[in-house]
C-alpha cells in the first residue's frame, strides 16, 4: 500500500528510518491515521528522539491492547501529537505474553505516569523505571487484569470484597 503521508509525518518516518532503521518494523495507515511500529527495546530511545528532535512534546494517550495471538500478545500504543507541526501519529510496540515489560516514558512525558499505571492495571504490562508503579483504579490486592480477553465479563466472584454487613455493635 502506498502511503499518503503529510509533510511533517513524512519527516518523522524519514528521520526514523535514517536513525533507527533496524528498529523500525512497520509503517502503515488506516482510517486516515498513521501508525509506526517499532521494536520494544528501542522505545525509550526513540521517544526521547521524537520529543527532543522532532517536537512531539504532547503525549495525548497511552493505550494497551490484547491482540490475543500466540506470539507478542500485547500491544501498547502511544498517541503522539506535535503542536508545532499540527501532526498526530500512533507509535506501537508489541510485547510478549509471559512477562510483558517495557521501558517507562514517564521521564520524557510526565503525563505518562498515570497512563502507564492504567495500562498496568488493565493488562498487567509492567513498566521499568516508573516513578510510582502501582495500580491506579482497582484495589491494590486485586489479582487479575480485567481487560485481558480471558477475564470474564462479570469478574471472578469474590475477588473484590464487599463491605461487612454485620458490623459488631459494641
Amino acid at each position, binding site marked *: 500500500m502506498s502511503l499518503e503521508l503529510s509533510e511533517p509525518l513524512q519527516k518523522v518516518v524519514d528521520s526514523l528510518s535514517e536513525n533507527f532503521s533496524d528498529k523500525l518494523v512497520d509503517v502503515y495507515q488506516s482510517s486516515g491515521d498513521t501508525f509506526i511500529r517499532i521494536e520494544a527495546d528501542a522505545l525509550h530511545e526513540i521517544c526521547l528522539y521524537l520529543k527532543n528532535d522532532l517536537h512531539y512534546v504532547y503525549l495525548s494517550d497511552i493505550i494497551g491492547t490484547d491482540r490475543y495471538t500466540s506470539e507478542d500478545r500485547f500491544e501498547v500504543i502511544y498517541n503522539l501529537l506535535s503542536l508545532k507541526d499540527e501532526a498526530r501519529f500512533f507509535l506501537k510496540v508489541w510485547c510478549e505474553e509471559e512477562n510483558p515489560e517495557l521501558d517507562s516514558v514517564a521521564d520524557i512525558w510526565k503525563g505518562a505516569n498515570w497512563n502507564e499505571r492504567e495500562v498496568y492495571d488493565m493488562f498487567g504490562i509492567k513498566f521499568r523505571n516508573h516513578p510510582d508503579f502501582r495500580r491506579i*483504579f*482497582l*484495589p491494590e490486592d486485586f489479582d487479575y487484569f*480485567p481487560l485481558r480477553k480471558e*477475564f*470474564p*465479563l*462479570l*469478574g*471472578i466472584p469474590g*475477588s*473484590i*470484597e*464487599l*463491605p*461487612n*454487613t454485620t*458490623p459488631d455493635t459494641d
Partner: protein
Amino acid sequence: MGLESALGEGYLTTRVDSLTNWARANAAWPMPMGLACCAIEMMAFAGPKYDAARFGSEVMRFSPRQSDVMIVAGWCTYKMSHAIRRIWDQMPDPKWCIAMGACASTGGMHRCYGVVQGVDNFLPVDTYISGCPPRPDAVLHALMKIQDKIKTEHSVMLDT
C-alpha cells in the same frame, strides 16, 4: 394553621405508635447518595417543580447523623460500596433505603466486574425504583411507599 385550630377545645385519642409513625413518616430526611446520572433526577425531585417538601423530605442531609432515608442514586462500584456501607452504618436508627434506578437495583447496563450488581448485596433496601433514570415522580412514589411502610411499623416496643 396548626393542629390546635383544627381541634379547637377538644381532644384526640391515638396510640403512641401511630403518633410517632405519623411524625416520622412526614419528616423522612433523605441522605442523597448521588453516584451517577440518576442523581440529577434526584435533584429534580427535591427542586420546586416536584417539590419533595410536600412530603416533608425537602431537607437533603449531607450528614448521615441527621438523615433517615438513604437514596442510592446511580451505579455503585466495589470500591464505593465500602464508603456507602460506612455512611449507612453511621445513620441513626430507624432508617430506610431507596435503590433508585436500574443500576442501584440490579447493576443495570453496567454488567461488569467493577460494579456491584445491585446495592442490596450490602444494604437492606426497602424500595426499588425501575427506570433509567426514573422520573422524579417515581422517586416521590418510592418515598410514599416508604411512608406507608413507616406507618405500619411498631415504633414503641415493650422490651420484656
